[in-house]
């Protein structure tokens, strides 16, 4: 799974939406919001597990958007205007860095702990430091010389956080900015060092997930050199990435983002047989035994009923592949 799961479309989701509205209008109750969030998180994890998803996320039903939310727990950041998330009609609030940043509390939600109680394989998920920096601006008072320096500062925040996360099955960092249209290899050359400094010496399995773009040979090579256990690739945006993988002869396990999350406006549910055929054809360039099948991006681009069908599809394809 990648990113937030649709929040509404079930009884507990609709209740959470209504209670949040009340909270914003000044009549809601924070504890009730927390309780409803926990109910919904548990429901989502169960939904994924029952569809045979082996490594679900916790649904992230408490985040405002998928790009800058960890910074709400950080000193030195204010939030500015609302901007589009890449090509979608979803939005994030631009982070304005106004002081040296400092982690003031855990970046990770209590809801993750609630999800772990439902199933031990639930992964942790954050927007990556590079992508967060790309969606920040340096305000008056910022001590950082540029966005690369800011990305390093964000990586330090995550390093502190990761040191507290012993025993989690996987920590995934989403880095859509690494392949966003127009991104050149030169811009992402900092990633290996950024991730090395963030992860060195830590005993936590990690993944970097990329989506919303296509891969140049150089960028793909950089991504595959990252010091993480899994690199997630977007096969919906870029089916040709398989050709590049063949040329690189890596034959490693990857995250195969092949189920369309609907971020480009397609709502159809794919034919599982066709997905199985596409996946099987990757056998010569990908170690399928060590790979994950996933949607390419967050399923919250779809209504919940369709998201549920996509989750079921992933489970069905995986079962067919395992046979």
């Amino acid at each position: 799974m990648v990113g937030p799961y649709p929040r509404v479309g079930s009884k507990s989701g609709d209740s959470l939406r209504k209670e949040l509205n009340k909270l914003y209008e000044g009549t809601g109750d924070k504890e009730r919001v927390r309780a409803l969030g926990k109910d919904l998180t548990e429901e989502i994890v169960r939904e994924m597990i029952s569809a045979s998803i082996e490594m679900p996320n916790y649904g992230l039903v408490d985040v405002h958007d998928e790009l800058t939310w960890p910074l709400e727990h950080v000193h030195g950041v204010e939030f500015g205007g609302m901007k589009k998330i890449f090509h979608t009609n979803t939005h994030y609030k631009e982070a304005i860095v106004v002081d040296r940043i400092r982690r003031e509390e855990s970046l990770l939600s209590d809801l993750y702990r609630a999800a772990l109680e439902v199933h031990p394989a639930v992964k942790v998920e954050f927007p990556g430091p590079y992508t967060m920096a790309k969606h920040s601006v340096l305000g008056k008072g910022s001590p950082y010389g540029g966005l690369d320096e800011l990305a390093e500062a964000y990586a330090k925040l995550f390093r502190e956080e990761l040191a507290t996360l012993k025993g989690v099955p996987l920590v995934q960092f989403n880095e859509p900015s690494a392949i966003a249209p127009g991104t050149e290899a030169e811009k992402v050359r900092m990633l290996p060092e950024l991730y090395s400094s963030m992860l060195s010496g830590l005993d936590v399995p990690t993944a970097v997930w990329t989506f919303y773009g296509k891969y140049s040979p150089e960028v793909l090579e950089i991504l595959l050199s990252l010091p993480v256990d899994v690199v997630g690739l977007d096969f919906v945006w870029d089916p040709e990435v398989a050709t590049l993988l063949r040329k690189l002869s890596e034959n490693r396990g990857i995250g195969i983002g092949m189920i369309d999350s609907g971020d480009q406006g397609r709502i159809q549910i794919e034919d599982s047989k066709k997905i199985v055929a596409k996946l099987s054809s990757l056998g010569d360039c990908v170690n399928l035994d060590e790979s994950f099948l996933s949607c390419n991006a967050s399923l919250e681009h779809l209504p919940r009923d369709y998201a549920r069908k996509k989750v079921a599809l992933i489970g069905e394809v995986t079962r067919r592949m395992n046979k």
Partner: protein
Amino acid sequence: MKLPFLPTTGVGSFPKPDYVTGAKGDLDENSREATREFIKRQEDLDIDVLVDGEFYRGDMATDYYRALGLPIADWTRSYDNRFWKKGIVDRPLRRTAPIQLYQFEFAQGLTEKPVKAILTGPTTLANWGFNSHYESREDLVFSWAEIVREEAMDLVKAGAKYVQVDEPAVAERYWETDLFREGLRRVTERLGVYTITHVCYGEFPLVYPDMPKLPVDQIDIELASELDLGSERSTLLQMMKKDPLTKYKDVAVGVIDVRPGVGVEDIGTVKKRIETALEVLAPTDEASKRIWIDPDCGFRTTKNREISYRKMEVMMEAVRQIRSR
């Protein structure tokens, strides 16, 4: 109609009063009443070109899908706890009846001042719904353009002097600006009236170089946050300063932040925004005549009607003070 220096206008929507419920595009008696009141308030504020408040609207994209008889999917999220229902293009698009004609005629009939006819643009309609019918983006966008064009022509026949095509999706797929521009051209070409496109919530630096080529008389752009950042820190303002859009088009500058939870600006803040806009966009007196003033976007997202009215008052007072210099 002769307009004053820094003509003022709205972008479109206004928070609905409690008695307007269940709006889905149709002009019922409650939305008529809300329109009457809103037109009167704008006249009292002496706004130059009025908007109808869009009280009949459910959603700027979904209403079009509904009007064309297309299916509507369940909720998806826009930001935090805000959701909307996207339509699904599952068949060839065909307009069998006007979508906003009667709404415009009603609003214009309430005032001597011009009321903008406001349409949703083809790219936004294509991007803000699902498509399971058209094979290509071109087919999808141009089919929507045909629908919007038919609507625009009916509005012009009905007396609209200002036609605004809202394209908040302009920067979403910035690598498709040629497609966006062609879609817009198919709507606005030879309409014979003053044409506007409103854009907001985007990474505008990505599309700014293409803006001079857009086939409209005016570009209406959200700028309040950027104007607060100032030209030293805003990439967009730096681009505007280097190559002012007023060289090519009239520009309506959004100087009021319409986001929910953002309080009413003081007059000094809004004056400063306007002054910064003039400094950046209008290096000459001639260029300053091409600048209009309005809020960043429709007030619908502000939600609170009183705050929205007060924001409009502040905008008008700031403009009056600058005009009187």
